[in-house]
């Protein structure tokens, strides 16, 4: 089943075209790793998928429903309210965690379920405790974000996104802000999630994660998708010299 589909996405910042007619499909349960040099448009593409960036033109479908549809210079045909409703299906994890510093770990997780979904607070707490157990942080539930490590923050951020029960999770360089010794715990949490058949779209520089966990790797360069294929194909015998040189550079 198709989870997300993007067609001819174009996005510019000023005169700089960041996404140059990008099309792709994500199937349910698929884990996609997006790699490529910095400035290639990976993060921008991901941010378009939950409305953090507005596309200039193109179309995005989420579970076969139009999430965004725009002709150049025209208004989006999808209304704001409809977008918001669909956006509930999309969870997101940021490079810099973006936990709410004035809320404890537990409060971070129950915030949106309670205020947005009007979930009963007791239920929300139970759910949050389960999620924290899942990411191995049950003992940190009453800590404030400033009191836990970067790796722990990111795991809380993953739990927080899962609290909204999303159908697809977007990860925007989830380990890039972490000390190397802390990336492992986050990648493990993501691996667990992939095993549970969560649909995942992961912008990353972690080649091992891409190689071992991803079902597909998308290589982006200069606003376009240069390759979209199985990991071993892309990592071992890439068609394109730019991919080859990139992979050599990051030293798999």
């Amino acid at each position, binding site marked *: 089943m198709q989870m997300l589909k993007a067609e001819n996405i174009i996005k510019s910042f000023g005169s700089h075209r960041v996404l140059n007619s990008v099309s792709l499909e994500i199937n349910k349960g698929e884990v996609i790793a997006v790699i490529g040099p910095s400035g290639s448009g990976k993060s921008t593409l991901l941010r378009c998928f939950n409305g*953090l960036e507005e596309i200039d033109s193109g179309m995005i479908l989420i579970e076969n429903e139009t999430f965004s549809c725009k002709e150049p210079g025209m208004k989006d045909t999808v209304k704001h309210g409809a977008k918001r409703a669909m956006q509930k299906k*999309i969870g997101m994890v940021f490079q810099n965690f973006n936990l709410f510093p004035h809320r404890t770990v537990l409060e971070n997780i129950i915030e949106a379920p309670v*205020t947005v979904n009007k979930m009963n607070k007791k239920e929300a707490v139970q759910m949050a405790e389960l999620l924290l157990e899942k990411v191995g942080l049950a003992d940190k539930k009453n800590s404030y*974000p400033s009191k836990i490590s970067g790796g722990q923050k990111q795991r809380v951020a993953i739990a927080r996104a899962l609290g*909204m029960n999303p159908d697809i999770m977007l990860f925007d360089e989830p380990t890039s802000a972490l000390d190397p010794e802390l990336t492992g715990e986050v990648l493990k949490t993501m691996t667990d999630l992939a095993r549970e058949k969560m649909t995942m779209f992961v912008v990353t520089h972690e080649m091992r994660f891409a190689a071992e966990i991803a079902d597909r790797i998308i290589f982006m360069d200069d606003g376009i998708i240069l390759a979209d294929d199985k990991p071993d194909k892309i990592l071992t015998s890439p068609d394109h010299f730019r991919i080859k040189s990139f992979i050599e550079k990051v030293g798999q």
Partner: protein
Amino acid sequence: MIMDNLAQYIIDSALFILKGGILTVELYFVTILFSIPLGICFALMKISRYKLLREITGFYTWVFRGTPLLLQLFFTYYGLAVVGITLQPFSAAAITFVVNYTAYLTEIYRAGIESIDRGQHEAAHALNMNYFQTMRRIILPQAVRRTIPPTCNEAINLVKDTALVSVIGMSDLLISAKEIFARDFVIIPFIIAAVIYLVITTVIVYFFRKIEARYSIY
């Protein structure tokens, strides 16, 4: 005459001055009660995506921060009377103080809100929170914490600014002290007034410290 019973004299003077102080305190609380929530609302308008709201609030803070409070007080009490709007001295003073202090607080809260990392807005968006939920639950609590010290400054300034109401004929704390001075020609009433002002500002500083401590749990 005075030396016969200095203690009694001080107590009598203090009580008289404190009576004037009631007005000061009333004006103080009315101003605080209205300016803080209004300041937050106007701050949100000042950074709104609607240009008209931004321009209106921009004009407002430009005028009221750019002219003397004393002039604004004259304007509300004497000026408006000329065009047929007559206000009681207390109403005139309260309106002027609220409008003036809201202008300063608007800028303080605007800066506070803008100092919150963009990532906080994005995280709230990704969690499907709408504008009001984001502001009320995520942005404002953090912004308010950061603006406690400048708000405390304004709260202290306000105590002293209330002394300006004498110019529209109100008998506040300072004027009461001056009345005793005019009658007896001794320095004591001014010292008493200074002590009362100090007590009030000390209480305010203590109060803001408490709030700051409560907010600094994270």
